[in-house]
């Protein structure tokens, strides 16, 4: 009994001063450091309307120190919604016609991926850091199903870049006033709709010092959104509407343009 009670008492003794709440000198929290990075998007919603021909993601913000080789550097990366894709290799059939041959499936391909920095990526961050944080087109995570082979992966990257869906340092980040930066990432007209993640990294001495994540929504809007929605949700109704509209338009047109 006593053996147990003794350590208990000792414990109580230790706890008592705190439990009494009589301690006036609580540790002062360290003074809040001003954020070393502040970034914002010019718009958090991009609308795909009937007149949509592409857009751009404009990221702007400020750093703590002057931007430059001796001071801060900024890196911006935008990642679009995931989509499944198939890459097919063209093969020649009987030495004559070109047909789609072997294929590889990629279930989770980022539909958009763009990166820009105040300086070329290789100068900003060493490769291990870029790998750890998945920065740059070379670090896009891809799982290849079906036909294996590095060719398909390379072809996918090439096709995606050709379509403007993957953009590697198209334009360096602009700097004004020493500490204000703005990055423009081009969105092509065929950019997928959905949620986009925009990552902003503050880099000093080739190390990531701070990061900030912003989200952006690209969505169909107005007439375009409505048609795509109806076509998907009420395909039967949409099919009938297409028939009636085409018939009506054809008939109306022939009445309007009838000559003589």
């Amino acid at each position: 009994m006593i053996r147990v009670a003794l350590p208990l008492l000792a414990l109580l003794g230790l706890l008592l001063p705190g439990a009494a709440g009589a301690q006036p000198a609580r540790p002062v929290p360290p003074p809040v450091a001003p954020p070393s990075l502040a970034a914002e998007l010019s718009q958090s919603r991009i609308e795909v309307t009937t007149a949509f021909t592409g857009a751009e993601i404009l990221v702007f913000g400020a750093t703590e120190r002057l931007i430059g080789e001796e001071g801060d550097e900024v890196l911006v990366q935008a990642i679009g919604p995931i989509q499944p894709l198939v890459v097919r290799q063209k093969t020649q059939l009987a030495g004559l016609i070109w047909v789609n041959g072997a294929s590889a499936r990629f279930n989770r391909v980022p539909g958009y991926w763009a990166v820009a920095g105040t300086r070329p990526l290789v100068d900003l961050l060493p490769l291990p850091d870029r790998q750890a944080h998945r920065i740059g087109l070379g670090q896009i995570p891809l799982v290849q199903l079906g036909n294996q082979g590095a060719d398909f992966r390379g072809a996918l990257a090439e096709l995606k870049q050709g379509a403007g869906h993957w953009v590697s340092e198209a334009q360096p980040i602009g700097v004004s006033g020493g500490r204000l930066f703005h990055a423009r990432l081009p969105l092509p007209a065929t950019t997928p709709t959905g949620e986009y993640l925009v990552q902003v990294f503050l880099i000093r001495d080739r190390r990531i010092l701070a990061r900030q994540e912003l989200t952006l929504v690209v969505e169909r809007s107005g007439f375009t959104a409505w048609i795509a929605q109806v076509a998907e949700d009420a395909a039967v109704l949409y099919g009938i509407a297409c028939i009636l509209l085409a018939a009506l338009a054809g008939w109306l047109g022939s009445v309007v343009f009838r000559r003589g």
Partner: protein
Amino acid sequence: MQVYLPIAEMSVDALLLLGIGFGVGWLSGLFGVGGGFLLTPLLILIGIPAPVAVGSGANQTLGASVSGLIAQWRRGNVDPRMGTVLLLGGLAGSGAGVQIFALLRSAGQVDLAVSLFYVVILGTVGVLMMRESLTAIFRRGRARPRRLHEHFWIHGLPLKLRFRKSRLYISVIPPLLVGFGVGLLSAVMGVGGGFMLVPAMIYLLGMPTSVVIGTSLFQVVFVTANVTFLQAVQVGSVDIVLTLLLLAGGVAGAQFGAALGTRLRGEETRALLGLLVLAVAGSLLWDLLRPPPSPFVMGPAL
């Protein structure tokens, strides 16, 4: 002026679409055909995905044929009984065609199949047209007496039916088969099929030319309606914005083409049409034969 197509999910110049519609409409008015066989390849050429080009092409052909059907019906140039028999075959054929299309799409071979179909069918039809019209041009003036229609094995088949407007008493099997075949091609190629149907009706079924155009329009309108519906429901590839833009140009062009067409001689018109058909087939064949610009292609996984 760029316009975003909601189903094709791409942005295209609206004036380009109106222009293509006008050009194809003009030619179709001139030659008296639907023009789908020119439209679908042109859409693929400007970068519209093949499924959307086929689905919207069928929808456009429907619109372009409606006014023609109304006009022919008023003049009594439609054989409703023959049209119905052809249509029954056509509905079955287009239903089967859309199934084949969906299968091809998941196998990633739609573009190849559409191109191959075009090369084979257009090549054959073009050669036949050229030969027939050139023969007619050279034999001009030396008219041969022709029987109303020739009798051969087709007329020995059972299930005979009287088609009063066509002045025929034949088995329903050949029209059903013709309708089925044209319906199938219509679904895969996104065409009305008038350019195949008209010769089949004249040479295979022996119908009088006066009711051929009207009756083929009857079949084309309803089969393209069926293709539009099935493509919209099963493949989801009918773009109504694309269709309406093409139609706007098309109906205007057709009226101008038709006005010029009345001033051309039949044989010359057919020779020109044959040349045009062969040119389209040739350009598609070239696309299949030349080394592709990129050794790989990507597409959505289905």
